[in-house]
Structure formats: structure tokens, C-alpha cells
């Protein structure tokens, strides 16, 4: 039996059907068609599926689809305003903080959560906050530089 779920994704009211064992990640990708959220492990170890659920950073592979009932979900697709990139996205591009790009959506969602919690992280705080987001291409160096630069710009803008 599938359950009918009503939720809000990136500000849009969304409905989908979901089996009791389906994850939120599965629902986002296969029912709603938002494939920007990636699956790297399915076990909460890589962070590629990071989304915001009612303001909390979660691995959407560890959340059931039915848990999204009545909640607010924010995914990578909701971070830019149409063609206007968020400063975090701009800084990732400027610093060449992505190579293959598969971890990038999760890292950008996590970075946004970091900077909302802590607008002035030290480099060490940024490295520990983002330790749940695996990147195999970059060695993290340029990612951390992009995050610190984005934090600076966002603080100036605030």
C-alpha cells in the first residue's frame, strides 16, 4: 500500500505516493523528479543527498518519504533564485571547488546550513561541519576556500 504525502519542496506544494520503505531521497528523485539531490551511498555516510527538512540538515537517504508529510523541504534546486546564483554557488564556481560535481549539490546545501548556524566559522569549524560530505576529486582545499570566501561575502552583505 502506498501512502499519499503532501509536502512543500522549495516553496512549491507537492504531492506524491510512497511505499512505507521508500526514502525521501527516492521520493525526491523518482516521484517528484528533482534529481539534483544525489545518491552516493544510501547509508548516510557521504552527504551527497543532503537536504534541509524543516530547517534541519539531513541525509535524505536516512529519512522516509512519509516523514515529509506536512513539512518544508529545501533541495539544491531551491537555492538559486532562477538565474541568480546564491553567493555560495558563485564562490564554488569562482574557486573551482568542484571537479566532477556529483558531491556539489550536497556540499552547497550543507554549506548553507553551516553559514546559517555559524556565519563566521573558523576554517577548522568549516572542515568539521562539512566532514559528512565526501568529495573524492578536490582534496577539499578549494571547497574550504570557497566556503570561507562565501562566509566573508555573506557577512558583509548582512
Amino acid at each position, binding site marked *: 500500500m502506498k501512502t499519499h504525502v503532501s509536502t512543500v519542496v522549495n516553496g512549491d506544494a507537492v504531492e506524491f505516493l510512497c511505499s512505507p520503505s521508500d526514502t525521501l531521497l527516492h521520493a525526491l528523485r523518482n516521484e517528484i523528479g528533482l534529481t539534483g539531490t544525489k545518491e552516493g551511498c544510501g547509508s548516510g555516510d557521504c552527504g551527497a543527498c543532503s537536504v534541509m527538512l524543516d530547517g534541519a540538515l539531513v541525509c535524505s537517504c536516512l529519512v522516509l518519504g512519509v516523514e515529509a508529510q506536512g513539512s518544508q523541504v529545501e533541495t539544491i534546486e531551491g537555492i*538559486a533564485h532562477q538565474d541568480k546564483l546564491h553567493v555560495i554557488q558563485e564562490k564554488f*564556481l569562482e574557486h573551482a571547488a*568542484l571537479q566532477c560535481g556529483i558531491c556539489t549539490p550536497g556540499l552547497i546545501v550543507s554549506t548553507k546550513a553551516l553559514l546559517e548556524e555559524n556565519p563566521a566559522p573558523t576554517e*577548522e569549524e568549516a572542515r568539521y561541519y562539512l566532514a559528512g560530505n565526501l568529495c573524492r576529486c578536490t582534496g577539499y*582545499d578549494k571547497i574550504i576556500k570557497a566556503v570561507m570566501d562565501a562566509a566573508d561575502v555573506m557577512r558583509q552583505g548582512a
Partner: protein
Amino acid sequence: MSEAREYQHIGQRTIRPDGFDKVTGKANYGADLSIPGMIWGAILRSPHAHAKITSLDVSEAEAHPDVFAVATYQDFPSVNAEAVAAGTARKDLFDTAANVLADTKVLYHGHAIAAVAARTEAAAQAALELIQVAYEVLDPVLTIDAAIKDGAALLHDNMMTQGLLEPASAASNIAARMELKKGDIDLGFEAADIIVERSYETPTVHQGYIEPHATTVRFDDNGPSMIWCPTQGHFDVRARVAQLLNMELGQIKVVASEIGGGFGGKTTVYLEPVALILSKKSGRPVKMTMSREDVFRASGPASASQSKVKIGAKSDGTITAMQASLHYEAGAFKGSPMGPGCMTIFTPYDVENMYVEGFDVVVNKPKAAAYRAPGAPQAEFAAEMAVNELASKLGMDPIDLRLKNAAKEGTQTIYGPKLKTVGLEACLLAAKSSPHYQSTLQENAGRGLAAGFWFNIGGQSSVMIHLNPDGTGSIIEGSPDIGGSRASMQMMAAEVLGVSPSTLNPIVADTEHVAYNQTTGGSRTTFATGMAVIEAAEDIVDQLKARAAELWNVTPEQVDYKNGVAYNLSSDERLSLAEICAKAEKTGGQITGRANINARGAGPSFAVHLCDVQVDPETGKTDVLRYTAIQDAGKAIHPSYVEGQFQGGAVQGIGWALNEEYVYSADGVMENAGFLDYRIPLASDLPEIETIIVEVPNSFHPFGVRGVGETGIVPPLAAVGTAVSEAIGLPITSLPCSPPKLLELIMKRG
């Protein structure tokens, strides 16, 4: 002279053209395509590391109402000796077939046996349980020592060792032996005042790309069948699937999706031929994905190795002899990178007498795949550790010892050619004067240094550049962009055409829309595909001159072209590229430049890495305090992405040195098949990775480019290993330097 040139765009840090899609979630990767009517495939995998399949019954699964098709090894029509003998099929075709769906034996835990396609992903998984398999379980062979000992269980009953001086008389787990030599190794050791000799080992590791393998396919009897997948080489996927399924190349179209990392591991096929069989049998599009566990258990690990190294030197540091014996695990089927291991191990050294032998050994682990400079990290780890030990025994600075013996232009390599201009000495000198090397080491810390070499390749690339009537254009290339290469292609074309890079849109075309391109691998893309882009752009410049000449009623020789503008040499008239395009209708239609090349002259890239570590004596945990990667790029087209290659390679090497390894149970089950227990480096594990780009131009490339993708993973194993050894005051001979291993060493030391 390349080094004297002033560039408009080369060397700038532009925004990559595919960047917007990749930071907004719009870019489509392997698992992101769904097609109407699509069903899902799933694979039954072996619970045993080594067993004969005594019976395989899929009838119950086939009869299930949710199941549309079942595939087994019997569905490969063209795995026949004739095609292989005729040279029209790859020599490893049988192995590829038996790897993607087992034939009569399963050779590793997780080996694919059969596949089903069903209405949903869950239904396909459930249907696997309806397949009945009976096994005769055999002894698993899990190490090189176990594989080569007398009486070892054989993985392949008919495998005779190739490359022996006398033909093998009995089957063995050693697939092949090779040797390389120069000079007289015995004389070399006789001339030595000091000899260092030691054995080393490295573990099985995984490339660890974050995107699991995935594919969506649609078989079509009336037109080309479509395969969508993340691959480093869609033309190679097409060739392998065509051979396995007895199809012509023109009957298959492979679309390379965006690719979420590969590092060599996405240069073969796993799911694609199986999915196409299921699609053919069911008449439906089929999607298949691997779980992370499947990725670890059944795709690409890099070979574990055992190496013996012996080096002789004069007391002034002149190395007189270098000798090695290298064993590589191939996994379940022959084909470890022992060849490149033997070829690269001593190439950083200009030494008269060398001897290297290599052995390719099969074991009950997944079939090894390429991993960034395949074979070199294992071999050069052993050589560089021994060279550092020699430096220590001689009381010499490790950079000075290397400078005294460094390979340079004219050095005779052990594998054949003499080196052309190379940048090893430049890298060593840059390391010596680097802020890192000049800095004082922290207390209780160790510092390690190592050099690294990788050949780099050229090969076939095909490119077209189409110009639009307004002067914008598109670059149609066929090299999957795994780390930002579209940006480099755009910059190189823009440099030749004298226009802004953003006016040219690079497109990685499918196998129907551009001619053949070799796989993105061997650090070839910016070099070889870049060379094709440059040639295609030069073709356009010739056409622009001819079109302008026609408009001015002069000969093309009377037209000059620079910085995007054509000049009439016999008047003061000028026309920009955009103006010529706007008038192209009057001069014969629109403009396309093209190049189909087989690029020669790939320039080898050398690197030198520096690493400082501290080891916690109570836990055995190593902290990397400082790290610097220095490498010759020839010419950095986009410096940020060049640095990114250095940094990424360094960190993969740090992971290999400190934590990563396949852990097996006695019965051959990998016990850490997930990112929690197979621990790749995290952001919190690392310091800044400092980089120094050395530019010794490759004279065979118009801009001086050398490939940079692979060399960066070669030096870290010994740079980290030596730093750890210095920090704990004990020799390191076995990777990874994981906390339990180091703790044991420290406890024994007391």
C-alpha cells in the same frame, strides 16, 4: 617558443561553462535519466568468494508476473574465439563477459551471476530471490602469497603463465611475468659502496568515486539502441557492448551522461551490456544502478602489491644499480597494471644499471580496474621509500640525492625511449626552495618527500567547431568532462580564434555526433583533445581568411587574422569574426572547423610531494600537518583545475597511505564495503594542500601542455610513509599506516 608567448585566455581562471548546471542540480548524471515505459534491472551476486556454479535455475523468476526478462551468461551471443583471434575483439572479451555475468565459476564475493528486469526496483530485487543457484564452494585465494604457493586452488584451470623464459608446463594463478633491464645489474651492485634492500606491500584500494555505476538503456531493432551511462569513454563502452552482443558499432549509440568521478574505474563496462540484454528480451527501456556496496564488492579496485627493491650507491650518492621484483593482484581475471608498474618504478632516476621483473597474479577479489596512474603508486612507493632510506644512510638531503641522480632530457628509460625535455629537476629545485621545505619541522613530527613519474598518453581525438551567424559557436568534442576539461577546451579555442571563451559552448557529444575519441584517461584530454580543438580552430581561421578574401576580392594570402579580426593587407579594411560569420551566407554558407587527430608527443609529468605528519603514540592516529604538491604541467591552461588535479591526487594518495584498504574475512567476504568503514579522507582529516605549478613546456603541444591528472597520486604514498617513519622512528614497509598498525609498531618499539 611556447614559454615566451603572451596569452589572452590561456592561464586565466575562467568560470567553467558547465558550472551553472553543476551548482544548481540541473546537470544529469548516470542515475538521473528515466524514460517512459522504463523498467528496473537488478543483479544476483555471489555469496561465495570462489565456487563452481553446479546449477542455475531462473525459471521461477522468469515465470513471475512482475518480471519482464532474465539474463545470464548464456545470453552473450558473440563471445567467440574467432573474433578475438581475428583481432576484431579485445583479447579480454571473455573475461569481460564472465565478469559482468559469471560463466561456470564465481570468482569473488559479489560476482554477478544473473539479472532480472521487473516493473519496479523493489520488484526486481524481490525477484532475485526466485533464482536457484547451487555451488560447489572452493578455497578462496585472497593474497599473493596464497595464490602463488604450491598446491594453491586455481581460479582458472587453463591459465598458463605468459612471458616465462621456458613455456609454462602447468596451470597457475600467475597470469604473466615480464622483465625489463638496462646495463648490467650485477656490475652495478659490485660498484656500490652501500646497498639498501627491503620489501614493501600495499593494500587493495578503491577509486572511491562518489557516483555509483548506473545506466539507462533502450534496445531498438529498427535504429540504434541507446545506452546512457557515466563513463570515461563512451566510444569504448560502445565497442565492448557491440562485441559482447554481436552488434555493429552503428547499431549502438552511447550517450555519456555527466560523470561523478571515475579515476580510471569508469573505463570498462559492468551494467551496460546486461541492461541491453534485458531491454532486448523485454522490449522495454531498462534502468540499473549499483549500490555503494556493489561498487566496492564488484567494481574496480586497484591492485594490492608486494615489492622487493634493492638499490646500490657510491658513498657520494651516485646510484649504481636499481633492482625490483613486483607482484600485483589482478583480482579475479588477468590484467593488473604490472606493466606500467615495471616501467615507471625507477624512471625518476638516471641510473646505468636497472633490472625489474613483474608478476600478474589472480586472486578471489573483484577484477582490478585502472586507478589514476595505474600501477605506478604501488611500485614508486617501494622505490621512493628505499631511496629515502638510502639518503638517510648516506646522511644526504633527500632532494640532493635525487638531484644527483635525476632523470633529465636524454635519460635512457628502462622501457625503451629516451626522455625528451622533462621537469623533474625543476620540481626538485622548486621543492627545495618552497616555504614548506624551508620551514622548521614541528616537534614530534616527521617530514617525508617523494618524487613521482607518469608517462601520459596522446591518442585519437575528434573535434568540430561550428560558428553561428552571430559569431558565437559550439565546440563539439567527445571526451567526457571529468574534472573541468570543457573550460580548457573553451579557452584553447578562444585563444586561437581571438574571441571571448564564453562565446564558445563546449559540448561532449554522443557517439553518433562526433567521430571516435579515446577514453578520458592517461591524462590525455587537455593534451590530445586540446590539440584537436586547436587544430579545428586553426581550420576555422583559414576559412575566415578565405571568406574575408572573397568579400574583399583579394587572395587569402593578402589577409592576416589576429585577435578575432581579419585584416586586408592591401588596404585598411578589417572584419571581425562575427562580421565574417554574418556575411557567410554570401561566401558559401556557414563555417565549421574540424580536426581528427592521433596525437603524438605526450609529455611525461614529474612531481615532488612534501608531507609533515604527527603520530599520536597513544592511538596510532596520524595527522597530516602540512602538505605541498609540486608538479610539472608543461603549461597550465586553467591553473585552478591544474591545482585541483594536484590536490585531488595528493589526497587520494594520503587516503591510500593512511587509511584505505579492503578488509577480508577468512572466507573472502569484504567486511568494509561502505564509506563508514572504508574510510576515504574527510575535510576534517586534512590541512590546506599547497601547490606549486612548474611549467617546463612540452614542445610537442602548441601551448606546451603536459597531462596533469595522474602523476599527483604517485608520490604521496612514500611522502606520507616516510613522514610517518620519521615521526615514529621505525621503518614503514606496509600500507596503510592505519592506527592499529602503527600502534602495534609503537608498542613493539616500547
